[in-house]
């Protein structure tokens, strides 16, 4: 992913003042992935652990 533009390096005495536009600029352009990604990893780890435990139990019985 390309780096975000560093707007702080552009020094201007002008700016956008329209409130409705400023509000729109705060909106995202894509859905966030961070929280969902972490949950998936936890579920995968839990599923893997329970599978390993089942395999150990079945090998002990044999």
């Amino acid at each position: 992913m390309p780096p975000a533009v560093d707007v702080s390096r552009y020094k201007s005495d002008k700016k956008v003042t329209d409130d409705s536009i400023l509000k729109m600029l705060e909106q995202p352009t894509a859905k966030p992935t961070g929280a969902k990604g972490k949950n998936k990893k936890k579920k995968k780890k839990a599923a893997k652990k329970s599978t390993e435990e089942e395999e150990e139990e079945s090998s002990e019985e044999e």
Partner: protein
Amino acid sequence: MQRSTRARKSPRVGDKIYETEDRPAESQQTGISHPTTVSPSSYVTPYTPLSSDAEEAATALKANEPVKVQLGAQIDGFGTIVCDTILVKSDKTQHGEVSGREADLMLATYYANELLLRLMIPPGLLASGTGEEKKKAAAEKRPTQSKISQMVETVVKSYGCNVVEGTTSWLFERNEIEGKKKIVLNPPDKEGKAEGSPEVGEVWGVEIGVSLGAGKVKTLDQRPTLHRRTTITYQLKRPSSRQTLSEIVKKFGNFPFSLRQLDDERAAKVGVVECVRSNVLRQYEVVTDKDNAPVARLLTTIGEFACATRDKLR
């Protein structure tokens, strides 16, 4: 980008990078969907001078001028194009900071682009909450072209700049970068009505062009070097024309190309004449700001997907 870099040299470097990158499976056709172009200062059209045109080939980039770099790639006819504007380094730049009218231009272009990208999102696509809340968001009225243009102009004028007239965002389709829909900013009087709105599942090339001048444009009397195939069929009379067209169709399909990308640049200059006259090829005239004022452009290829994230779109 360094000063004195020739505007002709950088595009070749860009196209070369594409040729050496990892490629997808052999079963998929890949190629360039737009040649690497380097457009200095007031140039609006992507600029790609030829080595055989000595005077233009000697065009040197100047300190502090905005330079637009545009290029694109395609897989199986599905193309993406990007354009970014960078400022040529200057001795006056302190700690990488930029001030004055150049800063106004870059900020105007950046924020206008960010606003335009958000205005392109179909209502409710990114809505969260309950099913009812999402339905309500999806039912919201989408902005008209006139409203979009007005809002973008408000941002640009905040920085004492103007939108380049006729700046157009297009629906991308397979083997087509100017599809059935378009949105035109600051439309000229007689043309430039919007046709359609972005919908889920579509891919668009979203473009913003900003000028430090009034935003009016003029056509230069320079050789057009950017072309693309049209849908018109015509029995070309000259063997040189047929040979040139055959090479173009084989290498680029319907995507735009530069004459410098053909095997023999000098032969290409002759071969395209009949092709353009018979409308088999469309040539992109060299257009610049009417007042020769600096112009910045950004072009972003976006996908309107219901479940997409930034990562998945890459």
